[in-house]
């Protein structure tokens, strides 16, 4: 066990865990932040995506000891009231079906738009290919990303 001070969503959280614990389980089991989802545990499905700095990162294979003092943003901290342009676009396009993968999709999409405010279809596909949606909402996700890109203040 070791103590880590994590900078999550603008606040410092102290946790006492095994250093090999993936960030995903620190968030879910130790901090009760369950918006970040477990899907595969091997960084293949994207359900656990968070931002490390500004980069979309799979938290299921990111050990807590490797995070250091980098800023972590989870779906809970993407905006105060769900009013991030990507979240708003998701609501407008009515993207989710079961909804389980959508936090990960939104985190990947918002990281994409931060680096590229007006991505092409191909760029969207490349960036989003690591996020599986079993319900098949891909066409709506693309539409929502374009909606968000066209809105102000991405």
């Amino acid at each position, binding site marked *: 066990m070791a103590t880590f001070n994590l900078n999550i969503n603008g606040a410092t959280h102290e946790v006492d865990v095994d250093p090999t614990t993936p960030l995903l389980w620190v968030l879910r*089991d130790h901090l009760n932040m369950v918006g970040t989802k477990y899907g595969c545990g091997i960084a293949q499905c994207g359900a656990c995506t968070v931002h490390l700095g500004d980069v979309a990162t799979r938290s299921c294979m990111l050990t807590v000891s490797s995070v250091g003092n980098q800023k972590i943003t989870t779906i809970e901290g993407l905006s105060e009231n769900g009013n991030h342009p990507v979240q708003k676009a998701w609501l407008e396009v009515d993207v*989710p079906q079961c909804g389980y993968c959508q936090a990960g999709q939104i985190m990947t999409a918002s990281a994409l738009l931060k680096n590229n405010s007006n991505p092409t279809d191909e760029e969207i596909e490349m960036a989003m290919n690591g996020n599986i949606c079993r319900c098949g909402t891909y066409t709506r996700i693309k539409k929502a990303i374009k909606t968000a890109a066209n809105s102000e203040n991405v």
Partner: protein
Amino acid sequence: MAKIKTQTGRRAFIKNTSLASGGLVLGFSMLNSCKPKDAEKMVAREMPEEWFEINAYLRIGDNGLVTIMSPNPEFGQGVITSMPMIVADELDVDWQDVLVEQANFDQEDYGWQFTGGSQGIRRRWEGLRMAGATAKQMLIAAAAETWQVSASEITVSGGVLSHQASDNSAGYGEMASVAAKLEVPEEVNLKEVKDFTIIGTSKKSVENHKIVTGKPLFGLDYQFDGALVAMVAHPPAFGLQLKSFDGSQIKSMPGIVDVFKIKTLEDGFTRGYFDTNAFTDLVAIVGKTTWEVMNAKKQLNVDWEPIADSKFKMDRFGTEMEVDVPSGLESTEDHYAQMNEMASKSSTTARKDGNPEEVFKTAAKIIERSYSCPFLAHNCMEPMNFFAHVTDEGAKLAGPLQAPVLTAPTVAARLGIPAEKIDIELTRMGGGFGRRAYGHYAVEAALISREAKAPVKLVYTREDDMTCGIYRPSYRADYKAALDENNNLVAFHVKAGGIPETPLFANRFPAGAVDNYLAQHWEINSNITIGAFRAPRSNFMAGVEQAFLDEVAEAAGKDPIEFRLELLQRAKDNPVGEENEYDPERLAGVLKLVREKSNWSQVPSGTHRGVSAYFCHNSYAAHVVDVTMDGNTPKVENVVCALDCGIVINPDAAANMAEGAIVDGVGNAMYGNLSFTDGKPDQTNFDRYKMIRHSEAPKNIEVHFVQNEIDPTGLGEPPFPPVFGALANAIYKATGRRHYNQPFATDKPPLVG
């Protein structure tokens, strides 16, 4: 207006003071359905001080807000929005005044709480309308009594009751307390379709705001003070069982509380049809956190041994039967060899019209093709999981379950307690697709909680989820068609089988449209467990039948849509046989609509086009799929889909579900594959199990609904099965190769064009 008896599914009209505090129901958000501006307005609006329970489906607050219970489990099909829409429409209340709450399992109040078979809206349609209409009628009666006027003179709009002559008007909230004390009317009026104001308009999902902000919704998110985490270890291969284990070593690992064996179903137990389970003896590992339990599980010292041939008793909805479980470690290569052998043997005849054998002997042309598909895993994004807290008082359970009505009796039987002592909270499901109709994991959670004497959340790893069975079976179908010298289809033979079940539907198209018709089937038993997977059996038969008909149309020199429409005309005007399941006119209807909407005869340059149409689960679907070639890889550019599922409650959400079915169809046709070596699934996670991804999804999907006033007939499954056929037909146009074996991405058929 249609009068309807109010005889089913409601309890007494009581004022429920336990619900008096308005804040309590806010656990479920109603804010998501409205635009941000409305949401702000709603937040400012005070919650009622008192709620009046009008019936099990709705309560009305003293300020006019209405809470509507959604009875069926939600797994992404949108019933948590569409079911309350039906109640709200008949109630005549503004949608923005509606709060929605997911009902828990309560058979007395909500009857058949089952998500599956595209049955939800179809089965609930009348009851939900009645719940709303009854409440409205009682509110009118309350106003009539209060104002001392005739009920027939009272009009209602948007939750406001008015009586013009006396210049009285009141909101529902003002009349709720009086209404709640009235007798249930014996008969109520339901609206005419033309008078619907909410049904048929698009409403956003009431849970979307929670989804996009990461609020706890799913079973895996379920939190309970002091809950431990549990995992189970099951045999790595079908045909193996637990021999022995030694938990002493891992018990001393950090966070581990206990390690023990559980037996999910006792020997001799008569299983229900949804009690499917290959691995009843499991090692349970219980600990404090998921990561600690996961690590301990990897270190578990456990031995497995081969199973012997065995039998179990099953009660298949009233029919007692004995099911054989063969021993052995099965492999996919052997499965295909066995299916090949069975296809050449004689088999059971399910239907025969005319004299197909004779006609085949004298036909001008004969087309003969064989098709196959592999096992598939459901791969719901949320792995199987369940919470249980079993005490001397009873069992509290919570989690994702499609069929609580079928799982609860098994939990009760296994715990040896009355069903009334079992509470099940229905969480939102992170996908289902049939998989969560099989609730063994809820039974496992209950047994682990009882043994550990603690509240426990059972969590499957992705590997556990993918390798513990309940798969879409592997199937094969052999088709043969005869054309006469005028290129008329004069005989048709389908022979289909699978491991371990047949996929055959003997009475579906083209049965009824061909004078000489033969449908046969066979089965090969297996110890690999199977279960419902979005549109069971149809998910194979639709695609291969529609691909075969494409070849027959080509051999006949006819346009594929014209060819099908001619057959459907025959089935309508002069049907062969009396058992035909489908309505030829509705099937023709979706073909005509998709022909029009896709501009069928005008194929864009560089694009290759395929069509399919199918009836299943009471509804009709047709697709036109456009494919382009990117080097040697076919890409789905555009899909136009036409659906006839009767009245559509929530059109944009319905379109979303159809879009998903199309993506799912393309994905499974191209890539879906679960194979076995010596009983072991070769794919255990998403590194080897290929799921369709963003770049492989159709670039554009258009969904069109046939407009009619037929009562809703179901939508979750029907758009899925025919995708496989339309895609195969489009790829043939693009490549000159016809795919006979799924998945297409690894199938290498010869050039035939």
